[in-house]
């Protein structure tokens, strides 16, 4: 039941899930995953945020795509979760650990699944690593959020988050209910979600 060090398959995945559920229900609200991420050994070839969310969401019923600089990472995640790495256009979950170029962001965002009117849930969830997240204006891009889960408006700032993600997200989420859902996770374990229903205003876009 327990991994190397002490990430617990039952209890830690449940805690991560509860944070994730509240993040999805309250877009832009910050949740701290660092307690779970700190229980993961440093030696793994993955970002600990990828590992924590991967262990929570992935199994043999699901597929993922991983953007990483470590060539052992994908097979490690497959081994740990029973899930399979596939091309971006077929993946249920896309984990982006690097800072991709604008061209790569465009390519990935055009490839991802956005579901259909009949099955809007068959759509990609992107888990994007950023340098830092904050609920006040700091460095990086500042987003003003509105939509379900938000009382009037909420501010979210993301450092190390290319605004190109938001530009193409807006285009791909144009025909609700089809669309894609974002989960942002920072180096130090702050997490916030941007489901497809969230309207984002930003001077950076």
């Amino acid at each position, binding site marked *: 039941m327990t991994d190397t060090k002490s990430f617990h398959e039952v209890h830690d995945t*449940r805690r991560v899930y509860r944070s994730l559920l509240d993040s999805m229900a309250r877009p832009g609200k910050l949740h701290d995953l660092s307690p779970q991420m700190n229980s993961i050994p440093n030696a793994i070839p993955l970002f600990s945020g990828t590992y924590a969310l991967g262990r929570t969401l992935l199994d043999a019923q699901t597929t993922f795509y991983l953007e990483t600089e470590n060539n052992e990472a994908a097979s490690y995640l497959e081994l740990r979760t029973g899930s399979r790495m596939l091309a971006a256009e077929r993946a249920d979950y896309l984990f982006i650990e690097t800072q991709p170029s604008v061209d790569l962001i465009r390519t990935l965002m055009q490839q991802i699944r956005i579901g259909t009117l009949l099955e809007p849930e068959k759509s990609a969830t992107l888990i994007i690593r950023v340098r830092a997240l904050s609920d006040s204006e700091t460095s990086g891009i500042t987003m003003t959020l509105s939509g379900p889960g938000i009382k009037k408006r909420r501010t979210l700032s993301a450092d190390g988050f290319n605004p190109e993600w938001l530009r193409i997200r807006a285009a791909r989420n144009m025909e609700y209910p089809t669309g894609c859902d974002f989960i942002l996770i920072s180096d130090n374990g702050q997490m916030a979600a941007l489901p497809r229903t969230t309207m984002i205003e930003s001077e950076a876009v």
Partner: protein
Amino acid sequence: MAMHTPLKQTYNYAFLDEGSKKEIRRATLKAVAIPGYQVPFASREMPIGRGWGTGGLQLTLSLIGDGDTLKVIDQGNDDSVNAVSIKKLVQACTNVAVTTDAEQATLIQSRHRIPEVPIRADQILVFQVPIPEPLRFVEPKEKKSKHLHAEMDYSGIWLRLYEDIVKWGKISIGADYPALAHKRYIFAPSPIPRYDLPKLHQAEGLFLFGAGREKKIYAIPPYTDVEPLAFDDYPFEVEHFEGCSCRLCGSTDSFLDELYDEAAGQTFYQCSDTGYCRKCRERGAQHGK
């Protein structure tokens, strides 16, 4: 790592295997991202009969763990056989505390009511849903109703409501009154009274709906528009209890059940939310009533 109280070896923690929990969790996350849309899920066999809240129970088991306090109610009642057996099952396979006090609970599983005290941001309300499809009574085939939702073709249900008005002078639906979520999907709020439906609109709490037999999960996130279907000249109305009060606590502003006392040959009223009624009486006693 914290040690957990030893549990019966025959159970997984929270009964379900981790694969089942993951599948329910993934479906729930998509449900929250698409308010009111029914996400299919596998739905496991549970040690209680289908129709006894297996959908709600599976949601509860996918959520529950250390730090949670669970309340289970059946039509507002903490002590019904159904509510008690669900609580016993959850307690047997987790180490969580249970409560009858809605304000103490982190998770509330309910059949057919929303507690009187509003659900807070740190609470989740899980509904047991018998029929998740609000279009069932105008389109019995799921394949077709799924297309109607996809195309947002809701003319059939609007026509039915209009015919109701022509025939009865009002919309005759009582419980399980259909509503529109986030201006997109018509959804079934489960057989809660109309009195409870406005509590879903722009609310602080998160509402999850589980239909075990029909294998569907859907959600109303906080601060989401929930609009009961109605016509401008026939607006939506909730049940009223003017001039009535609870015979136990005296409350005049809660949802009341009408009961009949055969011995006295009289009709009387009682809070449907038994936890709320109990607290009202305790408060009354403290104030020396």
